[in-house]
């Protein structure tokens, strides 16, 4: 059965220069292993391929639990010089949550 990440997790985007950060936090801790298994670096890179031109790095925080993705070259230059509407990329957390996984 396919499910959107939106159904089982929440996320907040942050920015540092041209780099986008995306947390991914399951509502229920028992979904953490599923996220760990399905929301791989490769899967996120594929999902955000039209947005992230650089690398995606995944960090694991099992104590919280949460995953954290750091995406370089993702904000078309960064907050001060980007020509996009959302120069911070603040809305991109909801782009990540559009991703579908098999559960």
């Amino acid at each position, binding site marked *: 059965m396919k499910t959107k990440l939106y159904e089982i997790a929440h996320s907040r985007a942050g920015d540092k*220069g041209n780099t986008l950060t995306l947390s991914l936090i399951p509502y229920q801790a028992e979904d953490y292993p599923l996220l760990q298994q399905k929301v791989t670096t490769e899967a996120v890179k594929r999902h955000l391929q039209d947005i992230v031109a650089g690398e995606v790095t995944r960090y694991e925080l099992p104590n919280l639990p949460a995953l954290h993705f750091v995406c370089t070259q993702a904000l078309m230059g960064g907050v001060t010089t980007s020509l996009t509407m959302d120069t911070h990329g603040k809305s991109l957390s909801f782009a990540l949550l559009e991703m579908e996984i098999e559960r």
Partner: protein
Amino acid sequence: MKDKLRIGCGAGFSGDRLEPAIILAEKGDLDYLVLECLAERTIALAQKRKLQDISKGYDPLLERRIESLLLILKRNNVRLITNMGAANPIVAAQVICQIASRLGISVRVAAITGDDVFSQLTGEETALETGKPLKASGSLISANAYLGIDALVPALSTDADIIITGRVADPSLFVAPLVHEFGWSQQDYEKLGQGTVIGHLLECAGQLTGGYFADPSKKDVPDFAQLGHPIAEVSPDGTAIFSKVAGTGGLLTTATAKEQLLYEVMDPGQYITPDVVADFTGVYIQGAGVNQIKAWGGSGKQQPSTLKVSVGYAAGFVGEGEISYAGSNALGRAQLAGEVIKQRLKDSFPDLRIDYIGSTSVHRKTFGEHLAPYEVRLRVAGKASTAAQAALIGEEVEALYTNGPAGGGGARKYINEVVGIVSTLIAREKVHPTVTLLHT
């Protein structure tokens, strides 16, 4: 030594609301109130204002914030720490003294300077973002090093009611009173790491207490319009209970705290500040009651020998134009308008950005099923080296009134001068923080 220290954060950015800080000062039972008002680019814009007028360059809301807070802070014996000094902490301190005189109260203000390292740069230093010399980005406007607790603690050692700074690492605004009051060693990296966790959770103010969290029916936040800002009650060992003033709106749960802990973090195992390389990977967050959470387990190791410097440069101008289409085939007509603009401007603006607001403007595409919107706003943006060239974009969009697709309306045009930001590193020993004490 105090057995508990209560620190509130009443502002998470320059444009934040005024009331939450007033409520914290009145009812938070605080020892310290922190107002964090300096985003990455804010100081470069402040430096530009200072260049135009030497009596400016501090936070534009300084007067309003101080006027609304000063009497309450004095009455409740709450010390204020803020980076509202921006590009001009000394003048900001003078302004605070003038407000105090007008209100008929005595105040002592410690202004911290030394972050401005513009005169020390040649422009040949490497920009961390590009790997090229700083000056390759454009004409340099400003350079401010991120100061840390070594700048703030001496200011706290004075009897100043208010400590006002320019560029300081955000978490340091919170770590400094912990070091000052609890006598933590500045080499106790485990405590400084945990203190940095506390500072990072607090620094965006409302973002810990349900701000920037709500999503109706999925993540509901009660009494959202009256959002209260957070307080940390910290013990000498660094464990902290976070709460908000009873009766204020918002929500403080493990979910809101987890979002904030990871916000803008590049590597959770190595969060670099001037004080410590903090490690967030061992942090636990647990509920501790209604709108209360407990956070512990932060640690860290020795800070690097360099400080980060935020460098502002003149990045030219951005021109923008917008026009709306509505009803049947709104998107089709907006796309035709976009094609017209592209054909007419592509030679002058190779990086022209064309957005269809209501369809593809925010994520540059649509994820999932795409429905035809009732209305679409065309937005065109491009960079230019002069204001006159930037103006062409808005002019071309406005010309669609009589030359473009059917039914376009509500054209608007904008020109903005842009300040870009790059970073570099400077040796710590080249930066000399100074405390200046002013009083009424």
